[in-house]
């Protein structure tokens, strides 16, 4: 059994090496590519031997920096290129061995050096170098027998231009056969529709560029090096950047670059009879990536050098971050007061919040009649907010403050000292938070003090240019008063707008919004606490089918990410603070039970009281019927899932969290589904359900516990069944 699994693992690593050439990770796609290379067994076998040699060398020498599988696909390419030129025999085997070994060593060094100096991936540089060395060297090895592939048939596979594209794509494996290209294209298409689109567009742009300048629409150049155009577009537009129209444009620019470079290299290399292989792709891709990486600000196209991913995956990550309010470069601030306040002037406000001080908020406190004062409002003491505590919205160091200016009467303004008494807090990265118009002598901090979030720093006053007592809040670039403001947002905030109260993870309120910071619910947080090793056992059932026991385990990855992993390998990352439990980055392994959890609990604020909030999880989480699910998977861009959550708290029964899921796609009318979760004190989420198109998915917490570790026994707590019955009645 052990031997078998080790073999399976090796095979999977092998297929992974094949798949990695075209940026995919799926071993099945790798198998498809392996079959594609074997169109000419001589080529395919050489490639396979090289990969096996690379695996053996890497393993026996315990080389570093090879976890990405970089050495596998570079060696594969080396093997394929040699197999494409020479008959596979003992001599070639000898050459294969040494060339592969050289490739592996180059991979080790180049991947590290390039990352440290330029933050760039090595891609297929080792292969290109070895291919050059090999080609030049082999010209002197008279004992090697040349390999001549049988003359290609001229039968048209699909249509001439399409065949032309497939031939070029097949050249990636040194096999300019339309059928091989088609297999590869199918592999890409199955992995990512967007990558397939980029491949086609990249080839068309590169070829058109060449054709417009050379006059040849069908050329050997495009067949021999056209795959460079496609690969450049895929790498630039899909793998190393977040998909957007900007990244698409850059990808097309890269394809055109690679066409120029290919033309130039042809001129240089043709006399030597040496193939340019992937040189144009590398030159164009790395040049553009290195250039983009030298920008100071992060604007589109957003680079993903640290964690490249399939475009659908990175787009989903970015989409979720945007929906939750973390997409922008806005500094999130905590609410600087206690209780419910009203926005008196918003960003781009009509009074004073104008460029370059447009990013600012003014707050006052109002009563049921929307007045900010009691009795007549003649005196400062009549104003509800006058003298109320002002809290620090950030953790930082007080870089400057003033506290001696007197509070002036209602209607007066002090234009000599616009900001009145203020505290300016430095949070680093050219961000200074200003809180102004504070009460005279109310400051509880001094210059140089470090302040924490929520610390009382002063009291609300009426100093400076302030027609009535209020708090002014903005973020500026420099420590000087009056310096230009930058964007910010309020985090963990409940906003009441037109009688509708909603919790927001981050939000920028507008005028007349009522703002308050909900309080962390310690009981709820401790009921939904997920330390490493925690296990949850659910009885999961669809409709009236027999229930199956499923298990979720909390794992901690090497880079410090907490993930909830189901027993079938599906997993999702999460973050847990005293105020929030949020899940993101679901991997691609199918698991309806985990998706049920995510639809119910995906974004759960750990706050007091009845709350409403909004989230937009990935539409792929919906357990739609097969046909619809397939369609949704193939057309990921045309759909949207909106979740509106509502939670009622009840000390007796715990918390009832209800989700209204609105699914919108262009091929079907809008549909609404309902999900509901019950959270019990100290037990966690004990029941979840989802109704979708007549299907009912349910899960009940059967037990929870802790996996064992050295010195720690495993723990399993069975839930009381009676309790479940009671809560079920409450649910109904």
């Amino acid at each position, binding site marked *: 059994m052990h031997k078998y699994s080790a073999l399976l693992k090796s095979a999977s690593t092998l297929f992974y090496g094949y798949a990695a050439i075209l940026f995919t990770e799926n071993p099945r796609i790798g198998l498809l590519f392996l079959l594609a290379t074997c169109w000419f067994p001589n080529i395919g076998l050489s490639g396979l031997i090289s990969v096996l040699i690379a695996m053996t060398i890497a393993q026996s020498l315990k080389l570093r920096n090879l976890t990405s599988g970089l050495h596998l696909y570079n060696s594969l390419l080396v093997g394929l290129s040699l197999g494409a030129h020479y008959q596979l025999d003992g001599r070639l085997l000898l050459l294969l061995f040494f060339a592969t070994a050289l490739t592996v060593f180059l991979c080790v060094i180049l991947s590290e050096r390039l990352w440290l100096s330029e933050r760039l991936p090595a891609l297929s540089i080792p292969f290109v170098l070895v291919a050059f060395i090999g080609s030049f060297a082999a010209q002197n090895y008279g004992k090697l027998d040349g390999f001549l592939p049988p003359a290609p048939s001229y039968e048209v596979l699909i249509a001439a231009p399409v065949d032309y594209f497939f031939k070029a794509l097949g050249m990636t494996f040194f096999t300019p056969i339309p059928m091989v290209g088609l297999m590869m294209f199918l592999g890409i298409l199955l992995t990512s529709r967007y990558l397939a689109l980029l491949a086609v567009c990249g080839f068309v742009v590169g070829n058109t560029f060449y054709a417009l300048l050379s006059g040849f629409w069908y050329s050997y150049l495009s067949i021999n090096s056209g795959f460079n155009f496609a690969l450049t577009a895929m790498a630039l537009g899909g793998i190393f950047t977040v998909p957007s129209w900007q990244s698409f444009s850059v990808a097309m620019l890269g394809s055109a670059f690679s066409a120029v470079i290919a033309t130039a290299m042809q001129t240089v290399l043709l006399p030597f009879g040496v193939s340019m292989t992937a040189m144009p792709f590398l030159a164009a891709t790395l040049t553009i990536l290195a250039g983009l990486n030298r920008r100071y600000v992060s604007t589109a196209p957003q680079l993903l050098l640290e964690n490249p991913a399939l475009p659908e995956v990175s787009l989903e990550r970015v989409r979720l971050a945007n929906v939750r309010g973390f997409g922008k470069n806005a500094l999130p601030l905590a609410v600087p007061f*206690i209780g419910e306040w009203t926005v008196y002037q918003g960003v781009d406000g009509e009074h004073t919040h104008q460029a370059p001080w447009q990013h600012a908020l003014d707050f006052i406190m109002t*009563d049921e009649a929307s007045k900010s004062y009691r009795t007549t409002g003649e005196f400062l003491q009549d104003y509800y907010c006058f003298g109320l505590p002002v809290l620090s919205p950030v953790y930082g160091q007080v870089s400057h403050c003033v506290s001696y200016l007197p509070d002036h009467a209602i209607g007066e303004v002090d234009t000599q000292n616009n900001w009145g008494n203020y505290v300016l807090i430095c949070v680093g990265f050219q961000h200074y938070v200003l809180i102004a118009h504070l009460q005279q002598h109310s400051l509880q901090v001094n210059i140089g003090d470090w302040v924490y979030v929520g*610390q009382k720093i002063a009291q609300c006053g009426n100093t400076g240019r302030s027609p009535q007592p209020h708090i002014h809040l903005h973020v500026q670039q420099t420590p000087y008063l009056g310096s230009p403001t930058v964007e910010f947002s309020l985090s963990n905030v409940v906003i009441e707008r037109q009688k509708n109260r909603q919790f927001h993870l981050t939000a920028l309120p507008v005028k007349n919004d009522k703002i308050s910071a909900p309080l962390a619910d310690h009981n709820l947080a401790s009921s939904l606490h997920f330390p490493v090793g925690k296990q949850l056992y659910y009885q999961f059932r669809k409709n009236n089918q027999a229930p199956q026991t499923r298990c979720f385990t909390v794992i901690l990855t090497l880079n410090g990410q907490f993930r909830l992993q189901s027993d079938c390998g599906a997993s999702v990352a999460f973050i847990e603070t005293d105020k929030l439990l949020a899940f993101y980055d679901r991997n691609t392994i199918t698991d309806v039970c985990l998706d049920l959890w995510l639809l119910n609990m995906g974004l759960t604020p750990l706050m007091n009281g009845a709350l409403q909030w909004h989230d937009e999880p990935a539409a792929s989480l919906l357990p739609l019927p097969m046909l619809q699910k397939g369609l949704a998977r193939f057309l990921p861009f045309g759909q949207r899932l909106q979740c509106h959550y509502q939670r009622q708290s009840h*000390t007796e029964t715990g918390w009832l969290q209800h989700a209204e899921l609105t699914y919108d796609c262009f091929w079907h009318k809008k549909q609404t589904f309902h999900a509901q979760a019950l959270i019990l004190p100290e037990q966690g989420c004990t029941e979840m359900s989802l109704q979708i198109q007549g299907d009912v998915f349910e899960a009940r917490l059967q037990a929870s516990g802790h996996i064992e570790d050295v010195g720690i026994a495993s723990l399993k707590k069975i839930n009381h069944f009676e309790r479940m019955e009671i809560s079920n009645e409450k649910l109904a």
Partner: protein
Amino acid sequence: MTKKLLKTWQKPSITPHQMGTLNKFGRPVSGDYVEKIDGVAVSDLLREYGSPLFVISEKRLRDNIRQMKRAFESRYQPVIHAWSYKTNYLNAVCATLHQEGSWAEVVSAFEYEKARALGVPAERILFNGPHKKRAILERCVTEGARIHIDNLDELYLLDTIAREFDKVTSVTLRLNFDTGYTEDWSRFGFNLGSGAALDAAIRIGNSSHLKLRGLHSHIGTFILDPRAYQVQVEKMCGFMELIEQQTHALIDSIDIGGGFASQNALQGSYLPTEQVVPTMSQYADTICGTLLKMTAQREAQGKPRLKLILESGRAVVDDSEVLISSVVAGKRLPDGRASYVMDAGVNLLFTAFWYNHKVKHTRPLQGIPEETVLYGPLCMNIDIIRQSILLPPLSVGDSLVLSPAGAYNNTQWMQFIEYRPAIVMVHENSLVSVVRRAEKLEDLNGFESLPTHLNGQFKFAE
């Protein structure tokens, strides 16, 4: 207009010149008078519901609680207000406050049952007071009400009950201590200085079924110096840290009781109420400021943020209710003072024993104010509503509005000699509801039963 008024007849009176300045009789009642309560004419109310009459203003009640909550919640969160039932447990008053979010603070089985009957969930009830018998404690434990332990005997009894029912019960410990600003209220709860409180906390810590989750103290009543609360919060937080270190207790709430003064004048107080009684903001500033300072590191230590519980009664309800009473007869006393017999006395306005209530007439009155005594209807010497007040001459049938009357009167009033009158509530839309009807003979006789051999056959003396 002036001519017409001059023609009306005025009762003659003789008064020394002593008006216009601060004096021991207070300022003369003149000028302003109360014609309407929240838009409803006093005369209409009396015609409809009879005199005397208690009138509650729903708007004022809601305004008061909202103002108090705003004052505290803008300085500290979370704040819970628990309505002190003994102050006024009329269902209409309690329900209004529960609608505004207040919990219930009860001190007897009767009050507990009343709150439950009104629909208050047990876990929103704080059960205070020195008198809790086994039966009601059992009910509290099963239903999950929060019990404030007053003495060791109660602690042992509660521990026994919790064990018998095998139910882990969260409890609050009532403390008493000297603040240096208030009189010593040492009869309730456990004393801090003597070590009794720590001893009780350790005993709870050793119990398998009791969990100490709250601390409570009530430093007195009608407290005019907010600094007393500063000391209270400091002492309670200090004790909290001590017991959290020494036992496994994790405190989730600090209950500072009530005691905020209302806008009522204590007898013997010289300055006007507005100058003596601190504003709600002043109370809140001191209490919340101290609490923020004392608990600044708490959340960083992974402990729950403390709930601040207020049990203020008087300051919430007192000025939202008035008593309207009518003049039955006038009499000149031998010492020359004017006096009137009213149809309401200390039987209804129990707080007249210690407050000098505001008295306002309900129509413009002519004549010079003179020192006046207002007597109640009881045939008892102590029945005096105001010992001394400057009032213009009144006529039989004139009505007076006595305020504030919301606190303690509807709970401490007596069915003594007289029937108790109706209580009405004026709603925010100026509609009026009777929230307690006037008593009738059948009501009172209903309690009694006459043994058959005592029925009739009376032999009256000739």
